[in-house]
């Protein structure tokens, strides 16, 4: 006798059961629709929506590494914000040095400057991540309290180093010529840079998703998030994979830092630490270890922040905490909980 190998029928699955797995993704249009109903002018709504999506994409880029680092090795890295700040300073320094390219009225030359800047930032923060992992994170594997204290210490040290190297003042910057200003669409003014940020964030997400789903290294990462021990028992050195993910996550944070700097048009040594609150919210509501959850969470937080800031500025700060509470009441492990073996 052999085991039953018939395909199960879907007849009993109710519409809700079929819909349920897609609910997190559907929350984005639902939130956008809610915004549409509450915001009196369509053009303001459109501006706010693009702005929220742009913000969400950038937060996703900064947060994605952190969720994987936690998922793979159970490491809580409060120092993640350091990479954002360092990335921003390195990137902006490069941009300021490339004023020939940024000042030219050519979109391609401007984009070239931005690409050079984010590449430099990603390289610098990737290297910094390598050192950070070795010196700060590795000695405290398995000890959450120590991780929190030590990685926070690392953040403070890096912030101080920024102050030493770049001085105590914030740096103001202007966007490259072709990325200044806005385009008008359906009566709404939409900043060009935000469109670029949305496109670039989406591209990065799709690349990341493809890597996680279709490459062996991606499979190892996904399997490792669920059961690291078994990945090792199959012959893979999880420790190396983890270092790779940590470095990639740091590089992405640095890259996100440059984009955020261009978005705000000002950078400070503390910008990374300030962003950590929002990043934590995103990582938690997405489901620790889930890149897709992180993506959806980031877009929700971005939209929420922009809508509420327009409707009721006083509530902007707590609206995202409220969103987190609501989502955790619905799914205590986050929207896309990752199955954990232990």
């Amino acid at each position, binding site marked *: *006798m*052999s*085991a*039953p*190998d*018939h*395909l199960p029928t879907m007849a009993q699955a109710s519409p809700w059961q079929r819909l349920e797995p897609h609910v997190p993704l559907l929350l984005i249009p639902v939130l956008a629709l809610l915004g549409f109903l509450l915001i009196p002018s369509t053009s303001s709504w459109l501006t706010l929506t693009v702005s929220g999506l742009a913000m969400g994409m950038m937060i996703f880029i900064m947060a994605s590494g952190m969720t994987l680092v936690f998922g793979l090795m159970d490491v809580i890295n409060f120092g993640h914000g350091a990479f954002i700040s360092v990335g921003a300073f390195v990137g902006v320094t490069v941009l300021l040095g490339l004023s020939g390219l940024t000042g030219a009225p050519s979109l391609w030359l401007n984009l070239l400057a931005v690409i050079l800047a984010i590449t430099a930032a990603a390289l610098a923060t990737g290297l910094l991540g390598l050192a950070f992992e070795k010196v700060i994170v590795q000695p405290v594997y398995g000890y959450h309290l120590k991780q929190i204290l030590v990685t926070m210490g690392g953040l403070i040290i890096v912030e101080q180093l920024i102050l030493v190297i770049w001085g105590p003042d914030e740096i103001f910057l202007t966007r490259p010529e072709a990325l200044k200003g806005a385009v008008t669409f359906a009566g709404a003014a939409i900043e060009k840079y935000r469109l670029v940020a949305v496109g670039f964030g989406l591209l990065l997400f799709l690349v990341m998703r493809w890597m996680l789903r279709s490459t*062996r290294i991606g*499979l*190892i990462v*996904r*399997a490792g*998030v*669920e*059961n690291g*021990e*078994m*990945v*090792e*028992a*199959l*012959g*893979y*050195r*999880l420790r190396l994979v983890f270092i790779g993910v940590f470095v990639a996550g740091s590089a992405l944070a640095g890259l996100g830092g440059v984009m955020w700097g261009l978005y705000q048009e000002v950078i400070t040594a503390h910008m990374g630490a300030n962003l950590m609150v929002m990043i934590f919210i995103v990582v938690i509501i997405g489901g620790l270890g889930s890149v897709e959850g992180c993506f959806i969470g980031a877009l929700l937080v971005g939209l929420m922040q922009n809508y509420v800031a327009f409707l009721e500025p006083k509530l902007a700060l707590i609206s995202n905490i409220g969103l987190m509470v609501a989502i955790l009441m619905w799914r205590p492990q986050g929207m896309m909980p*990752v*199955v954990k*073996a232990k």
Partner: protein
Amino acid sequence: MSEPAPQKAPILRIEGACTNIAQYHILQGVDLEVPAGAVTMLLGRNGVGKTTTLRTIMGLWRAHRGRITFDGQEITALPTPAISRAGIGFVPEDMGIFSDLTVEENMTLAAASGPLDSARLDWIFAAFPPLKTFWKKEAGTLSGGQKQMLAIARAMAEERKLYLIDEPTKGLAPAIIATMAGALRDLKAQGASILLVEQNFGVARMLGDTCAVMDDGRTVWTGAMADLADDTSLQERLMGLSMETA
């Protein structure tokens, strides 16, 4: 009956292994030999340290005393991935399925040194037809028996010098136990070396060539499976079968 292939060098040898988990002394002297090309049963009551022994071989727990030699090489202190790549396929007691990954992805990962071999895959599909049916399905949605099939199939995804299999029939219905036993017999017929933990005495008796019995973190008896199978009073003394029914 004589022991099979007693003249061959064992593929795996454990000498005086002691393993602590946290502050507990779990293994307190395990001595074990797995002859090449034969099935060695690891038996004993619940909680005597069979799973801990397999995990110690894989380096998932560390023996702080004693020596483990595999295929002529000492592996006591090697990291788990190196032990695996030395040629050991491991089926843990909890199966260790990656439930977010599809059956196919689970198998792809299991073939660590390259792409899946299609002849081998055909053999696996013949042994476990549901894996073919659910090839593209998330492993987390498989039934318990199908997950166990996948766990064993993963170990078979590549040529291995030794298989460590922990209770492959645990919690399964009789029909699926027969499927499992059939697949393991197949594996054995191809000359595989297997160290098998099994509570189902019928399966153990059918597959086992040699046998080691553990009690309280030690090996207390080793010999031919047939000798143990024929001697009920020995079974009772070693594995407390009478105690369990009392």
